[in-house]
């Protein structure tokens, strides 16, 4: 693989590039999904190719070729350089210096997911579905996935690395319907379950079959639950929903490419400015957020990012103050700090972008029960159902699959159709407690979209349940 990358980089330099890098990616993904006890999807997908990024007279060009041959590598390099030369604009791009990386990395795996037969994977889904049988549950679904990505990276500065990343995941959903009301419950997360960089032992740990009866019973119970009333109140948010809260209102706003406007037309920008670093109060003193591509099991875990920058744990928010951005070598050079380390591409046919790796809300102390015990009147919210946030990442609205009233420190009646909304720094400023390490969980999502052409990133967040005061639940009346 690395020889072909060398070939591409040499061709790009010969075509006039001042800097070039090449990535070869070979990815295999198996997906098994069942729906109402039928196999809905049984796919085995292979994709391979080379992507070449070239900097010519300060302008980027990127091109790719599916042929893993010297001819394909050279063709991609030539086209990347030609596109760079054609690009309009007064280009002046610099890259933060970084020592040329050399090395290899492989996800530690106990059970190779591709050694588990597809038939066993189907059986695992059908068993979980069978355990969701309930008279009000009209649709059940289960899915498991396995991915192996082997990639090599070579740059004209001498970086040469090879990594093999293995992911597994799964999830179940139950949809109940009665009298014109439809409700859904999921485990361990909605919108595609949860994944981790690990072997099949991770899927086993999700206990899909064991959790299935609870999921079905809660979906059915929601049909008879009261709608969550609109109010300004205290909320306790479970760890899974906190994953998305961190993702949308901390992860994306701290991406330095968004702050510099390069995502303005699509994903949006950020309410943060480069000068906010080190001074902006993002939230209360309980808010500590860390970017950590070294987290075991994280979907954003690697030894080197897609620019060859070594993985390093770094603070993003410490005691409520903004302390770091997610950066590339280019944006790091522009802000004059760090060396990047958050550049990731979706496969071989996309240009690397600044992406989250693993972004964690650090734990505080105490249990979920203790968080709830500190609430006289409020709502406990669990499992994401809907999500939306504005283009500067300020105004958000989340819906959850299920909620419970909190009265005098204890959970009360179940509530359906709960939503909450806020403005990012105001909301985080109202954070008054995060549960402790014993409640902290790592969640992995595989549907983070960004870029044009679009790219999916796989990202993990470690979070614990958290409590926020004076939050708008439902809609302002």
């Amino acid at each position, binding site marked *: 693989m690395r020889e072909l990358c060398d070939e591409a980089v040499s061709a790009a330099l010969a075509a006039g590039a001042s800097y070039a890098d090449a990535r070869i990616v070979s990815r295999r993904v198996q997906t098994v999904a069942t729906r109402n006890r039928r*196999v809905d999807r*049984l796919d085995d997908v292979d994709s391979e190719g080379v992507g070449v990024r070239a900097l010519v007279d300060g302008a980027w060009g*990127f091109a790719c070729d599916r042929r893993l041959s010297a001819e394909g590598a050279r063709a991609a390099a030539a*086209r990347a350089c030609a596109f760079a030369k054609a690009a309009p604009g007064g280009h002046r791009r610099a890259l933060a210096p970084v020592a040329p990386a050399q090395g290899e990395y492989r996800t530690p795996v106990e059970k190779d997911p591709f050694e588990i037969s597809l038939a066993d994977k189907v059986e695992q889904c059908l068993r979980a579905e069978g355990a969701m049988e309930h008279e009000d549950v009209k649709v059940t679904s289960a899915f498991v996935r396995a991915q192996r990505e082997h990639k090599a990276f070579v740059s004209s500065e001498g970086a040469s690395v090879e990594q093999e990343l293995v992911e597994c995941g799964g999830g179940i959903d139950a*949809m109940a319907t009665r009298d014109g009301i439809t409700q859904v419950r999921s485990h361990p997360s909605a919108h595609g379950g949860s994944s981790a960089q690990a072997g099949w032992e991770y899927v086993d740990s999700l206990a899909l079959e064991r959790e299935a009866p609870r999921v079905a019973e809660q979906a059915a119970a929601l049909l008879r639950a009261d709608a969550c009333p609109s109010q300004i109140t205290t909320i306790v948010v479970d760890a899974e929903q906190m994953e998305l809260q961190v993702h949308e209102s901390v992860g994306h706003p701290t991406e330095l490419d968004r702050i510099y406007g390069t995502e303005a037309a699509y994903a949006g920008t950020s309410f943060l400015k480069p000068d906010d670093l080190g001074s902006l109060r993002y939230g209360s003193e309980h808010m500590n957020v860390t970017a950590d591509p070294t987290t075991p099991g994280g979907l954003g875990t690697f030894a080197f990012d897609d620019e060859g920058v070594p993985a390093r744990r770094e603070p993003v928010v410490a005691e409520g103050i903004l302390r770091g951005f997610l950066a590339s070598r280019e944006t790091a050079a522009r802000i004059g700090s760090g060396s990047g380390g958050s550049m990731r591409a979706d496969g071989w046919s996309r240009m690397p972008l600044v992406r989250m790796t693993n972004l964690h809300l650090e734990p505080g102390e105490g249990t979920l029960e203790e968080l709830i015990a500190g609430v006289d009147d409020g709502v406990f919210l669990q499992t994401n159902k809907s999500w939306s946030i504005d283009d500067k990442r300020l105004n958000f609205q989340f*819906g959850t699959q299920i909620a419970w009233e909190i009265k005098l420190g204890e959970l009360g009646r179940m509530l359906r159709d709960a939503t909450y909304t806020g403005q990012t720094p105001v909301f985080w400023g109202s954070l008054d407690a995060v549960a402790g390490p014993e409640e902290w969980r790592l969640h992995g999502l595989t549907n983070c979209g960004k870029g*044009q052409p679009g*790219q999916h990133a796989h990202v993990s967040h470690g979070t614990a349940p958290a409590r926020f005061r004076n939050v708008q639940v439902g809609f302002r009346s």
Partner: protein
Amino acid sequence: MSEALELAERALRVAEGDEALAFVSSERSGLARFARSEVHQPTLIENEVVELQIVRDGRVGLAVANRTDEDGLRALAARAREAADSAPADPDFPGLAPKTEAPAVEGYDEATAQLSPEEQARLAAAAIDASDLDLYGFFTSALTELAIASSTGLAVSQAMTDACVFALAAVDGASGHSEQTSWRVGEIDPAEAARAAVAKAERTRGAIELEPGSYAAVLEPYAFAELLMYFAYDAFGALGLLEERSYAAGRLGEKVFDERLSVSDDGLDPRGLPKAFDFEGSPKQRVDLVENGVFRDVVWDRSTAKRAGGGRETTGHAPPSSLRRWGPLPFSLSVAGGEAGSAEELAQLVGDGIYVSRLHYLSIVNPREGVITGMTRDGTFRIRGGRIADPLVNLRFTVAMPELLAELPGLTREPVLVNEASYYDERYPNGVLVPAAATARFDVTGTGSTPGV
């Protein structure tokens, strides 16, 4: 025979099964993405993907690869066979699509197919050069070829082109957007799009806040199209109907929308991005979804048609394999135009309300009730006295689509093709033909940031 169909036939020949279907998708595209009036992420893609579906003893498996030499295809066939052998027999499998002729459609333009990277960059530059403000967006064009061959004798292929310029003119406190999409690059004027974006942006300076509440509104085609697409995922597909989880459940045949509203899905319409067949190889058909406010039908594929029984047949709306959980999807929505000559005329009909240019980050809050939330962006205005007036900050809205569509005081005459492809995964050009619309009810539930970057 096209190269894509030839590849599909080659894949079919190495398949070992009772039945087999090979689907090929090839892409040659360029996207010159720019920010602050400078191309910063130019991407050229060349790829060719083969999906092989094999049926053995009623068991169905699928494998996908982009290695298309003989060894690659044999490996693909072996994996598809293993997948099929791993599945339990599926008594509900509708079988592969029979041999049919795909309808003749437009949608291919030689000039668009032949655009070089240099020309794609030049068209991006034409937009940038025409803008007095910092410009963000892209120019893209592509040649995409789809082909399906199956053991039932099906052999269909289509070459399609698409081109799109997207222009966001933005500075601190002001932003405006415009875009143009066509399968003929000659119909795209990047400079005109840029100038329209700048003109809109200039009107957004000094945006003020608005109290949440229910307002009458004018929705530009970009905003109306996106709301309709999010509603359509569940409401206009047969799976949501059969599973009783969509707004369509129990409402077919009822008048539930304003009588001015007629919606179809028409992949054959040359004004859109035409398609000859779906991902099962079934011919595309026009489906009247809403006629004068009456909810008439949803779109179907072979699986949902078999499940429904009663002689129901596919309408040619099978989704790609990766989206199968959604069931059949309307990729070519088309809303009939009304009588208004312009969005400004719609503002006169509204009298007092808000004007919405474009939306951001929609999410389905309640699929059964068609409740959608999101933000407005790049041009939200107050309408006072029938005129588009003060610029507004970006607004959070949470709307029940049936309520929004229940009273439509007017629609503009000429539908506009709005691009709905975000170019994730393999390229599949698609868009919505939609006019601007006035609605009596658009629920604002919060406020966000000012326009601009």
